[in-house]
Every structure is written in structure tokens, then in C-alpha cells.
């Protein structure tokens, strides 16, 4: 199951939806809005998607997860619109017989989502300054530990 939504993500319902008596393991990942990126304060984020392509790519990620691992249920949900600090921007939940598949599939799904799915975030600081985040490929490839060096381009309003 994949979905884009303007509403807060109910990750508890999502986790319950992937749980089942056949599956001994559930892995859940939540991405949430941080108040600081390096020393830059974030007041809120705006996520924008190219919806038909984003949902298609998310469905392809689910299909690839099912091809690579024996999993039970898979859920990928990304929120779009304005999100305040602490809100959940993305949730990935995977159930499986055993934990290795649940962890590996969950991580593959979020890693691939961040690499391929056409969704963008715009950061806004308390002073109103901000901009769209368009990582350079070097930084993107350097994994999430480097995300706070993402390029922020331009000033919004």
C-alpha cells in the first residue's frame, strides 16, 4: 500500500494494518521534521510532490521490496503540504516472518524513496527565509548522515 496524503500520518493505524498472525516481525520507520539542520533553525517545511509519478515510483518500490524479500504487508505513506516541527513526514512499515527481512526491506524502501520519488521539501526559518532543498548527487549519495549539507537554493519570499 502506498499513499500521498495532506493529512497527519496515523502511523499507529499503519503499523496495525501491516501486523498479522503469520508475521513475527514488524519494522517501522518514521521521518519527522527536525527543528535544526546543522545550526539552521526550521520553523516549518512544505513538501510538494508530483503526485502521479510519486505514487507510481512508490508502488514500484513496494513491488521491488516484494521481489527481493519475503514480506507480509508493506505500507509507504508520505505527507505533503505544510508540516510543523515534530510532525511525521514519511512512514514506512513492513511485516515479515523474521526480523532481517523486515529491517532490510524497510530500510531499502526509505532509502529508495529518498533517492527516486519526486517529492521536494522547502525549508522556512522563523525569519521567513528558506528555500527548496535540491541535494547535489554527491551529497545525496553520501547517505543521510550528510543531509545537513544539502544545498538550499534561493530565498523564498
Amino acid at each position: 500500500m502506498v499513499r500521498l496524503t495532506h493529512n497527519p500520518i496515523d502511523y499507529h493505524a499503519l503499523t496495525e494494518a501491516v501486523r498479522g498472525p503469520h508475521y513475527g516481525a514488524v519494522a517501522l520507520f518514521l521521518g519527522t521534521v527536525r527543528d535544526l539542520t546543522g545550526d539552521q533553525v526550521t520553523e516549518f517545511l512544505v513538501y510538494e510532490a508530483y503526485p502521479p509519478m510519486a505514487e507510481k515510483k512508490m508502488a514500484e518500490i513496494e513491488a521491488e521490496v516484494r521481489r527481493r524479500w519475503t514480506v507480509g504487508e508493506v505500507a509507504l505513506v508520505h505527507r505533503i503540504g505544510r508540516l510543523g516541527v515534530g510532525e511525521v513526514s514519511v512512514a514506512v512499515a513492513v511485516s515479515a516472518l523474521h526480523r532481517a527481512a523486515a529491517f532490510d526491506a524497510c530500510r531499502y524502501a526509505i532509502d529508495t524513496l529518498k533517492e527516486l520519488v519526486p517529492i521536494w521539501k522547502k525549508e522556512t526559518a522563523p525569519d521567513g527565509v528558506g528555500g527548496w532543498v535540491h541535494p547535489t548527487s554527491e551529497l545525496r549519495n553520501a547517505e543521510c548522515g550528510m543531509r545537513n549539507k544539502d544545498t538550499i537554493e534561493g530565498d523564498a519570499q
Partner: protein
Amino acid sequence: MTLTVHLFARARDLAGSDAVSIDVPAVATVADLRLALTHRFPALGDLLARSAVAVNHDFADDLRPLSAGDEVAVIPPVSGG
């Protein structure tokens, strides 16, 4: 032929519109589209060079032929998650 090109995030801000009509030759590839976009929106230059192009919701390389009716989009480096 005339194609409608969807633009997102900073690419949209730079072009000043979320969808633009672009004329390309009747036999054209993604490379031709990129060239036409660069001429029409010089400010897109650097970001366009770093962006992917999607045709009908799949990433498309520069050799990909375009047809009337294709849904085309400029996909700047993504930052979801």
C-alpha cells in the same frame, strides 16, 4: 509539436509557472526538449542540468523520443523523506 512541461519546486519558481508549453520539432528527443527549455528559461540553466526529465511518470534519458500527448516533467533533485 507543442508539449506541456510540468515544473516543480525551485524549477517552477525559476520559470514562474508550474506548467509551460514548449515547441519542439515533430521528431524530438528529451535532449531537444532540454535545449528548448534552456533557450526559453535561461535562469533554469544550472538547475535544469542537475534535473531529470520524466516522460509519462518514468525517468527518461536524453535519447528518449517524445510524442505528442506525452506527459513531460522536469524533476529537480528530490528531497522527500
